């Protein structure tokens, strides 16, 4: 997993899987790296082969962390290039309403 900062933006990539084994680690590491007032958070899923409900839970937890501020603007959270089956999962679980799913 790779975490990059670009000003107040955070970019996470090289994630093989988000599953019950690694989800909480992923969540904690990203949370720790998160700026106090992030502009955007981008999670690159182009290399991600598998996401389960724990992975979804971690993504949801990060959304909450990023948006728990005092009346600030909503932080853009972007999921990049998820595989079709994973995108279907996001849609199934309504997560696509919280995240911006984009392809580049």
């Amino acid at each position, binding site marked *: 997993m790779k975490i990059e900062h670009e000003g107040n933006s955070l970019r996470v990539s090289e994630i093989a899987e988000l599953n019950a084994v690694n989800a909480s680690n992923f969540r904690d590491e990203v949370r720790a790296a998160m700026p106090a007032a992030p502009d955007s958070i981008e999670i690159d899923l182009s290399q991600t082969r598998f996401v*389960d*409900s724990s992975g979804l839970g971690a993504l949801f937890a990060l959304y909450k962390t990023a948006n728990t501020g005092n009346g600030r603007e909503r932080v853009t959270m972007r999921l990049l290039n998820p595989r079709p089956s994973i995108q279907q999962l996001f849609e199934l679980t309504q997560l696509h309403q919280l995240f911006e799913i984009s392809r580049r």
Partner: protein
Amino acid sequence: MLESVPAERGVSSRVAFPCDLQEARDATRMLRAFLTEQGMDESEVFQCELCLAEACNNAVQYAAGARDPIVAEAICRENVVELTVTDHTPGFELSAPSGPLSAEREHGRGLFIIQSMMDEVHYFRGRHRNTLVMRKTRTHQQHRSMDEATVASLDDARRQIESCQQTISGMARELCFRSESLAAIFRCCAELGRTSDIEGFAHRLLNDLLHLASADWFVLRLLPTGESRLITFAVSSPELRREPVSLERSTEPLSAELAAALTRREVELDCRHNAVPDEPLRAAGAQAAGLVQPLLFGDKLVGTLAVGRREADGPFSVLQAEMIRTFSEFMAVQVVNARHLEEQVHARLVAHELDIAHRIQRALLPRSLPQLANFGLAANWESARQVGGDFYDAIALSEHSVLLVVADVMGKGVPAAMFATITRSLLRALASRSHHPAKLLRRLNELLYEELSSVGMFITAQLVFVDLAERHLVAASAGHCPILIASGDQVRTLSVTGTPLGILPDATYRQQSAKLPAPASVLLYTDGLTEALNPAGEMFGHDRLADWLRQNFPRARSTEQLRDDLAADLARFRGGAALRDDQAFLLLSEKFSVLSAEPPAPPSVSEPAFHLTEFGPPASSAFSALSLPPTAIPHPQFA
């Protein structure tokens, strides 16, 4: 552990793993590889992998610390993929999804995903075992072509080889597993052969079945031989017992077990839907569900076996149902075997008792007969397989007098032999006190009446006192066959009526005397002779016996020879058929050295004396007795 085997019209792969999230993840990866191998498309494989992962993670979460492994299995059939995850925990609640999941809801997401992605989800809760069964209809059926199988990288190739190796070792393990189950069954059988404890065996076998089929109750009811009632034989818990229920008086609607017994088909039970109001298996639980199998041996109904779960959300899987069927068949065979064994043991006990009776009977026959001047004594006794109580005796009372006894204790086996022993002893003790056969019989009856009547037995006996010096005899009978007196070419039948011993408490007896012609032969016998059957079912009969004596007495060279000839002719008449009853006879004959020196008996001996009640047929009817048509009628004993 990974096992990959052909399933019913499909292939399956099974992984057992310890309670750990990483192990669970590895297991689902293996199953993913297996599903990919089966030619499923990426989207289907992902959904299956995800659902398996959710189910496995759930199991790990609930089974934390459990010692038993979690088992995940994928079965690919033509149109459907079945995924199962089995754990050994109290289980979790599977409720129907209430609607789209709100994004904020974290809990229950896994189950929501499973229910959304799968076409069918069943959760079977057992006492110590829960199985989540997920089924998905395959929409994209494609068989992988060689092109698709082309490996993208060295890593992929390595992974594929690894997967193949796992499949092969899995198959080997499956074989191992099956042979172990077989071995267990054989062990049980061997044990059964030694102990004949069919009930303990049934409990062990059926508890194994509960474990294997993830069930938690069983009811085995058997149909005893010759009955038409199902009787509870073994149950997993006492509340499942019930009173025997008749197969005949059953009316619609039928309980599951009666339906299985009467239709001889497997019956599915679901107490929530298809059970009759008074379904006895409801004792397993208001939600109980399961299968009822008829136990059949050939086309013979042996009983029923019901196996199920107290709270089930769905039916048994194909594999589990098959297992229940197999165990039912095995159980039926074992029940039939046990019954045969029981019959054999019983037969052996009976044979043992018969053996004892034979020994007693043999012991009470005189080892040697008294030596008499000018007269010879010879006797024959043949025992039927089923022991009766025939015996004979000859008690010398003086140098020239003898008491001849032939008796038949009604009844079979040891009791009959015991009474024969007592009767013989009493007679030996009483004989010296009186030379009157009628008095002896009366006294014998007094002594034996109580014992005989209390067990419903009686004895017929013929006593003949013979004074050889005076050449006369006195006969008395307690319901026994008459005696035959042969002289020259004539045979007289001396028949004295009398009640058998043990019938009336104060019976009195008559006696009749007759002159003993010269030369003479006296034959005492039991009804085993006259009632002997030839292969055509004809009886030997009194007349044939009298004719035999008439024909053979004049030609005889010795008493022993006469006896041997009679025994041989009786055996020939029977023609190899088994003896139905004991045969005993006692012959008293003039010594033949004396006989041969004398001229044939003068006609005067056939002169009827007033006290001879019957006479044989005229002497002119000379013939071979054994080729006679069956005109003979057994002599009535209770005249």
